[in-house]
């Protein structure tokens, strides 16, 4: 079972790598790392201290700078990195279920469950590698420059990958149902950039709107739609060194991930191709 999933994941990984967009992602990450390396080599921590008042201790200021850089990396990485990743994987399923391609795959001694799991793990692994490369690179640079070796920043690799893994289940489900990469992509972006942020700030919104029906609907939607805004907040908290996190969005997202992926597998198992 696992051997087949591994082989299919490997091919998906290779498929993702063959897309120029992932090379672009990798190139941008390398450029950012190079830019920070040059910046850190040319500017010393003392020069940052020079612009502070004497009352601010150098160590504490270094830490503030380090946290600022971490946030500067993780916030765009969460939004932009996931945007690129979703764009890149959105046609994995529609291409796979094309006539002539799916026939070949199903004619091999692999189950349909293994095919979907292979696609899922392969795509997620690719995103994980790209994000890990940038985050670990920045973490090392900051550690060397500012002496800040706080490992909580490294946990953002997992929260960002987790957010992708959650959205990717939706991309897979929509890909199987609609066979369209455009629909999968648009619906996922809609949830990621619009619906999730609105639902995350539902309590603020309902201080202005007094409707119990709308409140109940939004509360229901909040739990059945990927909570990417909450995952973004957790990622920012980890980047700032704050480990006292709200784990509820992680648990509900994990449950949702399992439900969406299981639904995708069940639909895929029943379909004729």
């Amino acid at each position: 079972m696992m051997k087949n999933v591994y082989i299919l994941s490997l091919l998906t990984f290779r498929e993702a790598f063959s897309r120029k967009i992932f090379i672009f992602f990798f190139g941008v990450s390398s450029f950012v790392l190079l830019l920070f390396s040059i910046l850190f080599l040319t500017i010393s921590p003392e020069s940052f201290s020079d612009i502070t008042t004497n009352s601010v201790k150098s160590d504490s200021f270094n830490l503030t700078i380090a946290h600022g850089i971490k946030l500067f990396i993780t916030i765009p990485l969460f939004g932009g990195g996931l945007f690129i990743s979703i764009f890149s994987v959105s046609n994995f399923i529609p291409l796979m279920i094309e006539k002539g391609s799916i026939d070949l795959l199903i004619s091999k001694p692999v189950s349909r469950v293994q095919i979907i799991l292979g696609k899922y793990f392969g795509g997620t692994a690719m995103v994980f590698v790209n994000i890990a490369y940038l985050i670990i690179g920045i973490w090392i640079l900051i550690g060397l420059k500012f002496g800040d070796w706080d490992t909580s920043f490294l946990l953002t690799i997992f929260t960002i990958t987790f957010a992708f893994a959650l959205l990717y289940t939706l991309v897979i489900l929509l890909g199987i149902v609609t066979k369209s990469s455009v629909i999968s992509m648009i619906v996922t972006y809609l949830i990621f950039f619009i619906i999730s942020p609105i639902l995350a700030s539902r309590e603020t919104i309902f201080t202005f709107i007094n409707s119990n029906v709308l409140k109940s609907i939004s509360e229901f939607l909040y739990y059945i739609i990927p909570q990417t805004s909450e995952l973004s907040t957790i990622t920012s908290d980890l980047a700032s060194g704050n480990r006292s996190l709200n784990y509820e969005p992680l648990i509900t997202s994990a449950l949702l991930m399992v439900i969406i992926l299981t639904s995708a597998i069940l639909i895929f198992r029943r379909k004729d191709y």
Partner: protein
Amino acid sequence: MNAIEINQITKVFRANRNKLDITALNDFSLSVSKGEIFGLLGPNGAGKTTLIKILLGVVYPTTGSANLLSEPITNYKIKSRIGFLPENHKFPNYLTAEQTLKYFAKLSGVNHSNLNERIDELLALVKMSEWKKTKIKKYSKGMMQRLGLAQAMINEPELIFLDEPTDGVDPIGRKEIRDILIDLKERGTTIFLNSHLLSEVEMVSDRVAILNKGKLLKEGSVKELTTSEEIYEIETSNVLPNIYSIPEFSSYKITQENDHKLSINVGDDDELNFVIDQLRKHRVNIKTINVQKNSLEELFVSLIKDSRGKE
């Protein structure tokens, strides 16, 4: 021992609103013995590809069951002993021929020890060795077909399904593919061939079935189907007399094709000998007597026309 056993399979594709359901296969049963080349013939939309897809688990039957190599088709693990070349197949175009074969070999459960040798051997067999390291996106249709065939053979299958294997291949390539199929048969592989090219099917198949609108019209050996046992062609060395004026022949269906050739429809050997005796009596020198043969194409066209006429 049968390699394929199909028992009363029906497949109905449920249509969306305002459209009619499509019955692709209707109570279809068939057996294919181990080690034979079986040709499935039928016009477009006859249900040939649907049948192969059902056997390989790509499409689910509405009713009925089937076994491949004595295992039910629901057991996906049996596919490690099966090869398949789909019609208009698509390989990942970022892979080379070698990488493609390696990938499908691994998926088919082939062990690593002799895989590289096996890949080289197969690429040489399908005349693709020099393209081993070239990415698939640069291949022509014929090259894709050759690679597809190599892919179908990578796991040394006991049973191979080939859906239009010579599609897009030039005449020399077709001959080479036919030779490969005959070689596979000699090694004991069962081949299920699905093709529009009737003459090719006729050349390599041991048995054929003709399918139209999901129904089996005829099945049998190529010899059985192409031989009209009751019609004989008689060629003479001297000019024939007017056959129609001979009273002894009045009860037979005789066609005089020219001065030296006639065809006659007889019920059995006694009748044939009687006709020969009568011809000899009228001083006809018989040169050859042949059983009349129809090509598979003639049979195919007449069966399809008949089935359309009955609707």
